[in-house]
């Protein structure tokens, strides 16, 4: 009797395995959620790109639900998403920028040429803030709440499809902090 049940064991194991493999086909193994999720924005004291005399700290990012966009002029995908960020800014979304491992002169030039969607831009020449945030490739876009806590991260360009996702998160965060 025992043996009768045992001979079905390999089949059962295979079916279980098959289920996971099937699930695996719809999961992207390269997509990583931020390790900083629900943490306050990491501490920094860095100059502003646009106003070089001014020093920015996490306090400057607080006040409302906003996007933080990590970008650089050496990153082609950043150029792709830039127009979309401009559109979001026109729609009244607050976007902060982190200029990541870049040359400030080139970055200022870029903002002049392609317009500046950012409320303020943190100048992270050494990439140390990026390291603290766990940035692994520009562009990345974070959703932060009014207290500057990180709520979501997207890696890659922001387009209308991604924006739908970001918008939902922002609305949830907004509702959460009000309620």
């Amino acid at each position: 009797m025992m043996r009768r049940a045992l001979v079905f064991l390999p089949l059962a194991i295979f079916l279980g395995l098959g289920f996971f493999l099937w699930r695996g086909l719809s999961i992207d193994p390269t997509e990583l959620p931020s390790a900083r999720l629900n943490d306050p924005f990491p501490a920094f004291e860095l100059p502003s790109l646009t106003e070089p005399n001014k020093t920015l700290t996490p306090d400057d990012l607080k006040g409302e639900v906003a996007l933080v966009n990590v970008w650089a002029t050496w990153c082609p995908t950043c150029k792709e998403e830039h127009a979309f960020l401009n559109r979001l800014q026109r729609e009244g979304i607050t976007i902060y920028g982190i200029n990541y491992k870049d040359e400030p002169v080139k970055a200022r030039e870029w903002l002049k040429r392609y317009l500046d969607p950012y409320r303020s831009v943190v100048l992270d020449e050494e990439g140390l803030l990026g390291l603290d945030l766990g940035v692994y490739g520009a562009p990345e876009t974070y959703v932060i709440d009014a207290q500057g806590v990180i709520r979501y991260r997207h890696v890659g360009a922001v387009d209308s499809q991604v924006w739908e996702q970001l918008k939902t998160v922002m609305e949830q965060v907004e509702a959460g902090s009000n309620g």
Partner: protein
Amino acid sequence: MRALLLTILVVLAGPSLAAIDAYEFKDEQTESRFQELTAELRCPKCQNNNIADSNSPIASDLRREVYRMVQSGASDEEVIDFMVTRYGEFVLYRPRVNEMTWLLWYGPFVLLAIGLIVVVVIAKRRKRSAEPGADSSGLSQSERERLNKLLEQDKK
């Protein structure tokens, strides 16, 4: 199709160049610690590389950070914690032992124990069932003949 081509290029361009930087260490022990740590940390951006082997910019940044930390006397745990707070458990090629990884770490040994018990049980049972009469095998006559024929060919 274009997307597919891109994936091919990205996938295959990945490991084509070994990452070599020329760091100078305060002593040999620090150098070997650096080599061990960078070999056990996974590059978050790459396909499946540790940060020691990958030549992507992020891996080189992380190597620099590990170098800075070991050189200034940080312990292995400090370096690992530093990486995990920023990039998550994903960067650890040696997953930590916790409820989530008990199956991973202990499962094979449990399986081994079960396997060995089964071997002992089978051997005991075989021996006992064989003692009363050697011909309790339940083989049909034709099967037995066929088998004997085969086994005899061996002996010739």
